[in-house]
């Protein structure tokens, strides 16, 4: 069951990703990005990273997408005009070359990892909120606290850069 679910949601993620890039209207792109984020959450869940999956939905599919939509509306970005002529060469050469690159990378990865270290569904169980909390508030205490500085910088930056338009 796990591999089937993986294939389904990995497929959805890839398709949504391609749709996101090819859409002309930014809102449509943003909505397909939600599809990508949601399917990634399921993939995390399948691998046993439960907390990350929940955070993915709350933070990425939730908050960050809201920000994206607001920014698109803020910029009032409409649909992009169609390109005058699309390059056939890019299509003919680009697609096979991307596939070749992916194949090469896949081969390299497959060759360099022995079978006993590959990922198996259900092997990893340390992804619950409790396990994350144990790691975060003991070993990873310093990075956690320092993250608050990043948040403060983001607050300052948002106010500094947007204040002109508010007044």
């Amino acid at each position, binding site marked *: 069951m796990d591999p089937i679910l993986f294939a389904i949601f990995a497929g959805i993620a890839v398709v949504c990703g391609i749709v996101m890039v090819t859409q002309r209207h930014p809102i449509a792109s943003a909505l397909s990005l939600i599809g990508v984020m949601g399917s990634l959450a399921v993939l995390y869940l399948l691998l046993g990273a439960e907390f990350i999956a929940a955070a993915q939905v709350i933070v990425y599919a939730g908050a960050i997408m809201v920000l994206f939509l607001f920014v698109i509306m803020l910029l009032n970005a409409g649909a992009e005009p169609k390109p005058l002529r699309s390059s056939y060469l890019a299509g003919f050469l680009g697609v096979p070359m991307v596939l070749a690159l992916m194949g090469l990378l896949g081969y390299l990865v497959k060759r360099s990892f022995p079978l006993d270290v590959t990922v198996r569904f259900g092997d990893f169980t340390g992804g619950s909120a409790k396990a994350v909390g144990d790691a975060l508030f*003991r070993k990873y205490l*310093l990075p956690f606290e320092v993250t608050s500085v*990043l948040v403060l910088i*983001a607050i300052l930056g948002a106010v500094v850069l947007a204040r*002109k338009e508010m007044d």
Partner: protein
Amino acid sequence: MPANFAFPTEAEYIRFLPETILILMGTLIMVLEGFAGDGHRKGTHKVALFGLFLAMAAACYAGSNPGPAFSDFLLVDGFGTFFRMLVLTVGILAVLCSPSYLSRERADSGEYYALILYSLVGQCILATANELIMVFIGLEISSIATYVLAGYLRDDKRNNESAIKYFLLGSFATAFLLYGVAWIYGLTGSTNLAVIRQYLQTSATADPALVGLAAGLMFVGFAFKVSAAPFQAWTPDVYQGAPAPVTAFMSAGPKAAAFAVFIRVYITAFDGIAETWLPVVWVSALATMVIGNFAALTQTNIKRVLAYSSIAHAGYVLVAVAAHSQIGTAAAMFYLASYVFMNIGAFALISHLSRQGERYVQVNDLAGLSQRQPVTAALFAIFLLSLIGVPLTGGFFGKFYIFKAALDSQLYWLTVLGLLNSAVAAYYYLRIIVVMYFHEPGHATESLEEPAAGIRVASLVAALAVVVLGVAPSLLLNVASRSSAIGR
């Protein structure tokens, strides 16, 4: 639950004291700014200066009892303390030359100093980071604060351009770094530099090609931050567009910190695979020197000249990294210290010379400066001579030690090409000196007022440091050699 876990001891908190002080002072400035409401005010920079001196004292104190802190996330050693002191000095000099500039542009607000302090938190973390996670967080803190600073004057189009270019390209580069970190974690099972090093030296399971790929991805991130070729293209535009004191800050602080962490990661963690990354550093060092120096030849804008010169200087430091020896590390440390002083001094004077709205930033605007303001011209000349590498300046000994380290490691070609590059570089620096001393004063120099007190202090201190490093280099070189034993 990890059984062997112990909560941090007092000594570990002390090792994190400089960052703690910077965070507290930054937050204090931010809260005070909230109380003050709208309007312009003076005096916030004094709070920032106080915090910076306090943090420097704390860095000294923390350095007196070296060791790891917070489950090995930080490693306070001589190397880390050296760079902590260096970036804090940069912070002090940058804060000194900011108030006059900001009040001239009617943007004198506390957020600026809060962001500088926060950015320095990131740089201090980078100086002592012993974990790739900490490297990433430190780099993000340092850079995101700098992105905002680059666009600090919101009404200025050049500021906006600078900030957006820096932000987009910088985020892209950080993503590469993070991807490399993820690969390293997947391959070695750890993000701790010492553990990665041990794994790479003892275990044969990791494919060298994949480890090299991961190290290469991380190199992209670091090369961007230190503006090394081929990831240097952002530098001139960003340096030109940002407010002059911010350029002074970001061409010195984040760059020194990024070099510190770059050297530490590659010498500590990736030492076992040195033969894969050394050629890359070799090529990048040469390309960086050539691109920086030759592109600077045709520039007419002083900020762009210095931006390209800053690229070229990153190339010289990379030569020291390519030497891959303890002498090389010490040479890089010495060079970065002298580079920081000459560069920040030059940009401090530019923030004075450019006047409101940065109207006068062409090389020709300096015509006859020596007749109007002999001291300013003399100080500027000292920084430029040091950037060339003339004897009796810090720049000379910096280059000397770097090329000596390169010769010791049998990098003959790189040394010869690097020396040729320095000869080329002399042209564009000397051109500025010639304009200052031998051209008739134009209307740009005639309207020049006396420099503000902060800029005077900053440029005098920087010039003094440049000269002291040029006359008695052993003062700093001894410290650098003692602290350069990382990962061995």
